[in-house]
């Protein structure tokens, strides 16, 4: 077994190696900053300040992080079942329809009824849409990577059609719905704090963030502390062992995609019912793909996803801040960084491992 020759202590595999990979991604991003003619170290200072230096900065950071928690969890849950769900973007988009339908047509109900219904709408629409590639993978063997890419595009077109032709506010040019009634909008965090007499900066951060935190706990319990989650992980880690254990892989594949899609639906909650208060075109704006980077960096663990989401949220917010101070740098730098994180912590995850084994062996020998 060649694996035994390359054995590393657990902290090297789970903490040191991912951190080194992240460092490589950041270094590469630094090179990009250099290419734009700016000083990367100044950029880091500005970004950290922008993300955490003020109440407003923190609010925005967490608001961005909320979307990434949802999509990060969505990708992570699918990963645990051995599935690569590239379709979180489309699932979130379709979930927006579920949320909007509740908020537009059931707004005669009080908020405490609209809220659970909207959550159910987001989850059901997201899950339902993810069930298609899930079912095709489980029953027909269609590769989920390709089918989820395709379902993304179908979602874009379907939502565009629905927004332009059906749900558009009459007498308006841009394809978006009317504003939801106040009782069908998630309260902003500043308003909630104001109600208990605490004054915080006004940001789009809203109740969906709290729901996202609950989802983290929920996923953690489901994946690691239930029989169902256990069977899901067996299927993902070793389909043969699953058959041996009497677990039917096909069923788990579909169920994992249902949960994954439902989680992706959280983006709709945060954006449509929370930040915007209306359904508008292209609201998921790439968070489905950011989820891949977040899940890879968070090593598919809910806590890892939380940390990675906050980090990326900070990068989004800090990146936006950066453009004011350093006009040569754009928020798109953060998108490039996402790609680099996926590249180094995903595709090249084990590149540094042999070197690390050597380094640790030499270190141990010197002692």
């Amino acid at each position, binding site marked *: 077994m060649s694996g035994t020759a390359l054995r590393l202590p657990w902290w090297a595999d789970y903490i040191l190696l991912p951190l080194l990979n992240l460092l490589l991604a950041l270094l590469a991003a630094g090179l990009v900053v250099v290419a734009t003619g700016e000083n990367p170290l100044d950029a880091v200072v500005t970004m950290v300040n922008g993300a955490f230096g003020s109440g407003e900065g923190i609010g925005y950071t967490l608001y961005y992080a909320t979307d990434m928690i949802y999509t990060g969890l969505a990708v992570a849950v699918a990963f645990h079942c051995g599935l690569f769900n590239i379709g979180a973007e489309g699932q979130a988009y379709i979930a927006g329809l579920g949320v909007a339908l509740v908020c537009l047509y059931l707004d005669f109900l009080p908020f405490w009824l609209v809220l659970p219904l909207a959550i159910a709408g987001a989850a059901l629409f997201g899950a339902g849409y993810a069930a298609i590639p899930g079912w095709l993978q489980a029953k027909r063997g*269609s590769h989920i990577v390709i089918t989820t890419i395709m379902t993304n*595009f*179908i979602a874009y077109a379907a939502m565009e059609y629905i927004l332009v032709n059906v749900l558009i506010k009459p007498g308006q040019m841009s394809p978006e719905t009317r504003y939801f009634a106040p009782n069908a909008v998630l309260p902003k965090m500043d308003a909630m704090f104001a109600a208990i007499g605490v004054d915080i900066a006004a940001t789009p951060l809203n109740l969906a963030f709290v729901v996202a935190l609950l989802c983290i706990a929920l996923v953690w319990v489901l994946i690691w502390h239930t029989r169902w989650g256990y069977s899901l992980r067996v299927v993902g880690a070793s389909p043969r062992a699953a058959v041996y254990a009497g677990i039917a892989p096909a069923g788990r594949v579909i169920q994992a995609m249902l949960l994954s899609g439902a989680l992706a639906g959280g983006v709709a909650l945060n954006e449509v019912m929370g930040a915007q208060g209306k359904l508008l075109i292209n609201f998921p704006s790439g968070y489905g*793909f950011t989820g891949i980077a977040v899940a890879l960096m968070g090593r598919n663990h809910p806590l890892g996803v939380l940390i990675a989401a906050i980090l990326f949220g900070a990068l989004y917010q800090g990146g936006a801040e950066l453009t004011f101070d350093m006009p040569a740098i754009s928020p798109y730098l953060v*998108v*490039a960084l996402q*790609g680099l994180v996926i590249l180094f912590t*995903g595709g090249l995850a084990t590149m540094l491992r042999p070197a690390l084994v050597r380094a640790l062996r030499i270190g141990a020998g010197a002692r």
Partner: protein
Amino acid sequence: MEQLDQIVPLLAATIRVAVPLILAGIAGLFSERSGVVDVGLEGKMLAGAFAAAAVASITGSVWLGLLAAIGVAGVLGILHGFVCITQRGDQVVSGVAVNILISGLTMTLGLAWFEQGGQTPPLPASARFGVVVLPFSETIGQIPGIGRFYTEVLGGQNILVYPTFALVPLAWWVLGSTRFGLRIRAVGESPAAVDTAGISVVRLRYAAVLIAGALCGVAGAYISTAQGAGFVRDMTGGRGFLALAALVLGKWRPWPTLFGCLLFAALDAVAIRLQGVVLPGIGAVPVEFVQTIPYIMTIILLAGFVGRAIPPKASGLPYVKDR
């Protein structure tokens, strides 16, 4: 004559739309036939589009732009190869990474270098691929029917269109009739057979990803310096994925892939013309639905409801010599 007025522009548009799809489709074909899955066609094309527009706008030479596009996308191909072949990393993750990286990188560099909102400066006609006027257009153009076809469909296209259509028979010939093609086909199905025959699996696959990169570069250059007149954010607009769909539809073969690309391009051309058209009895044509047909067709084919698309057996799997 009225029908002709409809059909000629439609055919001409189909060809224009099909070109980048064909280039990217054949790019994916080489990569995937060698056993390396490539969902990063989109990113490589986008990088090519940016490089071509940037270099063409700085140097004023469209050909240097094309060269830069090929170079940049080729390097990305090698990067994908490094991840998938040398490091035996996940091929899909690598492709996704390239797509996202390039989407961000082109905008970052574009904004910093040109300070025009991420776009490259609009290219003058001299820094774009111009329209080719076929010989005797004046004369043949006079002939009713055929004339317009000659000047607007066969002619009236830019210089990249012709080699693109020649690429399909070329790819078909390379795969079917050359040593290199034979080995590419073999390595995507059974790398162990290639290895035991004394041929390097690694070199073959690197060659394939390099070809894929270069062709994506040409596709990108076409989009920004022939079809368009400069780089615009995410201007490839999912064509890389559409090419992937055509590749699945074409079952990883050159001619059927061409057919898939032409079909998707025709749908696109029709959809644009149907925008806002109200058909009697039906009402407004749902253009968005027409646009989803390629994706729905691909899913149906992958599910095996109608026919079956079976990828090369070793695609997606890094080659590990066991025993």
